[in-house]
């Protein structure tokens, strides 16, 4: 009886986190992998892993970071398993190109393309800062870097985007 109630509460807790953070998980996965189909697979794997290890999470306040860390690891596992090659921007598959689906706003289109072309080391901290609202300390922790390295990467990422956007 008691274990049944615990199981129900556990499922409620899981559904609550997923409902709130699913969008963040997907967008993070999409910008890590640069591929919509892979992002969906990674999120599915991450949800399974989160379900299995839910009891390790003790604080609601840590849920977002915990889930994004799982997404990051699942993305790395996915690429390890598949041994995918670096994306060639001029030869995209359909699901890679879908990430860059044309917007009505040309500036937005150009920016999405420019972010897509950033190296992983620059794109990821930018996503964590701008999209996920992480501080540079939190990014350093997530990416296992020193804070100084994070600041440098963010500085360079914006400089690259600024240059790209300034090109005619």
């Amino acid at each position: 009886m008691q274990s049944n109630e615990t199981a129900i509460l556990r499922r409620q807790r899981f559904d609550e986190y997923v409902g709130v953070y699913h969008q963040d998980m997907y967008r993070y996965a999409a910008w890590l992998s640069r591929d919509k189909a892979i992002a969906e697979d990674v999120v599915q794997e991450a949800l399974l892993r989160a379900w299995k290890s839910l009891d390790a999470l003790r604080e609601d306040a840590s849920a977002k970071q915990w889930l994004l860390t799982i997404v990051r690891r699942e993305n790395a596992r996915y690429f390890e398993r598949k041994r995918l090659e670096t994306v060639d921007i001029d030869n995209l598959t359909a699901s890679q190109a879908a990430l860059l689906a044309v917007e009505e706003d040309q500036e937005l289109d150009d920016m999405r393309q420019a972010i897509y072309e950033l190296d992983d080391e620059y794109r990821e901290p930018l996503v964590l800062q701008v999209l996920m609202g992480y501080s540079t300390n939190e990014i350093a922790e997530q990416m296992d870097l020193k804070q100084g390295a994070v600041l440098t990467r963010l500085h360079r990422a914006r400089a690259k985007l600024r240059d790209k956007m300034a090109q005619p």
Partner: protein
Amino acid sequence: MNCEDYREAIAADPSFDGGAGHMSECSACQAYRKEMLELDRTISRALSLNVPELIVPDLPDIDSSNVVALSKRRMSPPVWLAMAATVVLAAFVGFRMMGTGVEYGSLGEELLAHIDHEPYALRVSDKPVSDARLDRVVPAELARLDHSAGLISYAQTCVVNGRKVPHLVIQGERGPVTILLMPDEMVSGPESITGENIKGVILPVGDGSIAIFGEREEALERIERKVLDSVTWKT
């Protein structure tokens, strides 16, 4: 701080709020900061991809005995059973107290539990959170918030009753005051709440509500008026 240092700091984090002295004297750096903030707005829009409908995978049954690790030492069955029952009960009670997705008797109970589990938010501080962080936690499409309620020393997106809500802390006269903006949490009327060392109120505001909690000696009525004046729902 010179122009180069300032621009590096701004490019790494446009919400950087140091170097105010330099910026007030350097119009070129003022323009640079404005440009970086504009660039960040475009980056943010570009990163916000459309998200497909959520499909939750088939989740395997989890044996509830896995929730806690029991000792591997062999024990006689009665002792093992008694201890296992105690541990499971403790885990269950622990979950209820932690506010981790469990059902509470009332919204007030959940809010008290939530505040209780973010003690690091309740620091006396004279350092405001950056505008950029505040914009992220209280996005323009959710609410407009001016700074008239007081110095905001903490801003975090939290989950209350299954919904994301901005959790802010301002500095009151007797200590930190917690504010939770709940645009989708409708209440029928003001509801007073008393915790162990704190008191608070949930106020109906439009189709939502705002919860305000402070020390027992804090003059919350004055803060309530200021908070209500400083927040406008956009939803």
